[in-house]
């Protein structure tokens, strides 16, 4: 019988206890021991950004962090991004603008984007590109993701923001 480690931490705003094999990564603990499968994996070697979660508000690669290191920390996954039934503005704009095609990388992008907008409510396109440069997406070419971040940022600032027509219909 394996010896399990036992930790308590705050997960998506809730006090959480979990027991798991001590060598497991946070990614594995979230997916396998807490059934939060919204956090995805693309390489499990820290190469693709897909498994990104927020730990104490900072984006980290959950495949490179041991579950043990989460003791006493505040962890946020994609499942904790919406406020109750109300989607986060980023979740709304990612869905509405087609920023999620296959959707496999989306949880990671969404959490990195949330971190970005918290620190920088009005990022330029170049700042968005820089912030998202650790996350790979093979579907979108990133463009719809930038547009979704820009639209969500404007909504969160309470500004009226019209998406350029060409983003949806192409140029005339």
């Amino acid at each position, binding site marked *: 019988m394996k010896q399990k480690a036992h930790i308590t931490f705050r997960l998506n705003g809730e006090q959480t206890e979990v027991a798991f094999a001590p060598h497991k990564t946070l990614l594995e603990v979230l997916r396998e021991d807490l059934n939060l499968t919204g956090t995805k994996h693309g390489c499990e070697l820290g190469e693709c950004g897909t498994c990104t979660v927020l730990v104490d508000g900072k984006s980290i690669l959950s495949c490179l962090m041991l579950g043990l290191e989460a003791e006493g920390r505040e962890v946020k996954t994609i499942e904790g991004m919406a406020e109750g039934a109300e989607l986060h503005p980023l979740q709304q704009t990612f869905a509405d603008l087609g920023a999620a095609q296959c*959707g496999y990388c989306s949880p990671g992008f969404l959490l990195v984007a949330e971190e970005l907008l918290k620190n920088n409510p009005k990022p330029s396109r170049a700042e968005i590109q820089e912030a998202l440069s650790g996350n790979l997406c093979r579907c979108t070419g990133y463009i719809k993701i930038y547009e979704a971040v820009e639209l969500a940022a404007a909504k969160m600032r309470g500004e009226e923001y019209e998406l350029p027509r060409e983003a949806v219909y192409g140029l005339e």
Partner: protein
Amino acid sequence: MSKNESLNIVGKPFRKVDARAKCVGQTKFADDIVLPRMLYCKILRSHLPHANIKRIDASKALALPGVFAVITGKDLPIPYGILPVSQDEHALCIDKVRFIGDPVAAVAAIDEDVAFDAMNLIEVEYEPLNTISSIEEGVMVDEPRIHDYGDSGNIHKKVSLEFGEVEVGFAEADLVREDVFFYEGNTHLPMEQHAAVAHYDSDKKITLWSSTQTPHYVHRALAKVLEIPASHIRVIATPNGGGFGGKSDPFNHEVVVCKLAMITGRPVKVTLTREEVFYCHRGRHPVLMKIKTGVKKDGAITGMHFQSFLDGGAYGSYGVASTFYTGALQTVTYNVPRYQFDGVRVFTNKPPCGPKRGHGTPQPRFGLEIQIDKIAEQLKLDPVAIRRNHLVEPNSTTANYLRIGSMGLGKCIDKVVEGSDWKSKFSGWDQSNRKLPFGKGIGIACSSYICGAGLPIYWNNMPQSGVQLRLDRQGGVCVMCGSTDIGQGSDSILAYIVAEILGIDPFDIRVVTADTDLTPVDLGSYSSRVTLMTGNAAIQAAERARELLVMAVSEKLGVPIENLSLAERRVFDVENPDTGVSFAEAVVLAESKFGTIGTVGSYTPPRSPGKYKGSGVGPSPAYSYSAAVAEVDVDPDTGIVVVERVWIAHDIGKSINPMLVMGQVEGSVYMALGETLMEEMTYRANRNVVHKFPSMLEYKSPTTLEMCDVKTYLIEDPDPNGPYGAKEVGQGPLLPVPPAVANAVYDAVGVRIDEVPITPEKVLKALREKSRGRDGRYGPVSVPNVDWPEPLRVLTPAEGGDGKEMPRIAVHS
């Protein structure tokens, strides 16, 4: 067909029906499925590229606590493969391994760690064999044979077709050019690693959840290999976390987990590691090409002889189709009156190649579009005009019997030329009078792609796509179809079309797809077939349901059927809109009159006029067209190429949802950019054929920092065969980008890079050659000497041909 101007849903940028689930972490991908008592599978793979298996001893693995089963090749002796002509794979190798990564044995254990430990306890004794590691070796070296089938030695397939007499074309030409190009192989790199879960129930039925693009073909392969009736097998394709063609074959891990579930009586899951995904591959074939083209002074093509040499890797996969595709679509953009195609695919000891976005056509398009640029320079013609002036006519038939319907390439060219301000940027061929500074350049290329393969993978006379609709008395609508959403939005397309015809909201509809027990067959998400084929099937099913509704409502309201309209969840009199019933009431009326309301629709592509052997690849209900202009910045000191912007126009026919079309165009440009500049599946240059970098870190793909700006134009030239006129967009827009970038590099610094990826090293080498007064070119210079068969000769339509090959005359003494 409904009139486009009165459309309420089609053509509008609705979000996808599954978009929110994907943004909140609710979408269940294959690896997210957990079943009670589930075991975990690990697959032992060959570490040698080519070897006979002498002995496998699994006793130590079986003795490990927590191990439930170990299986080897003898447990699954029946071969399979995606094409009927290439049934050359075994779920686990039986007597030999053919590449590093070939599966040898599989373990089912209580958890992944135990499975991994057990896998490493399996002892395999190999007898190494010499390897075949390149196109040249595949052509030249017959022994050892990788497979005991194929055309000869290590040549898997060799074809030669001639439409009209190309020599006559060359004799008429004012200029005949011969060029050689190389397109390196690359892989799909979906963000989701392949995963599968098998469940064997007490009635001895199997259910497999898998990240597959082609559940129907997996279903067929499982029935064959597991030797159980297909009716006892259920395959459910989970939403694919990216496919791009890489999840289109039946895979060994899918067979293996089913077998392990049958042996252990417990559910079994496998999730591949990223390294294993590189070995699954089935990606872009490396293709060497030689193109001989004759043209008149105005650039009109008089004849073309295209030769392609494909490195197929270790198995057949889609390779025979890929080989034909490298020769099929050269004729559908510019008029090619006489055309010869020779293609050869060799087996090598590498992961098998197959279909990647554009399947077999980006490689020839790359060569062709660069050669056209070279011809334009030699004839002092404008690279735009040489293309624009010789376009294939709409509603025509090409020399190789491809039936062209709508053809919007001219409009595409006009848009990107105007949008990019081409005329004030392109310097002409005179470098002394540049418009952009040295180092900055602009290039153009065009392309076309099929909207669905005209023929299914296995011969049959049944529809390629089926849709079933169920309407219930609460007003609920369920659409069922075998199609598989790989992120492109195929589930949403079904909902939009059914909602359009029934006058309801797309989000009112329950979409059930990709489940071989519940949904009618659709062949799968490949060949850009899904919108056109499922769309047409959905229209038929929905029109049939609509007919039942309006008959019942007409009777109730006393309004003639032709006066009834369906919109905004109502069925009403168009002349007196207040007279009507709700959609739910209409269903109740119809159910009361006709019984339970269910309808079906199906789609079979039109028959192709080509009847010659080999005519099965290339025909399609419609062809999409694209044109791209790339603007680049080339640093002559480092050789680094930065693609600053791509203007791309795509002839979509009609956008069912323009936002999703835009996403496919942008994604195609992105994937093309990766192939053009950095992505390559390459192997160490020794006899061991070891993949250089089976990891996401070292297999370079574009991040946000490398992705270029994209300016997109959607050209709507409705095609009569498309649903509402729609054509494909998932693959076609990738095609013009690599040659447009290569042509732009030439404009920027005056060197020709005739292969991809266009790396800094290659640019620098070409620049050094040029500075030494030699040919400023990087690329292959020759092709292997292949003993081509006598071509199969077909008279072209212009020559009065009937689409059949001419009788062979014995010419060999």
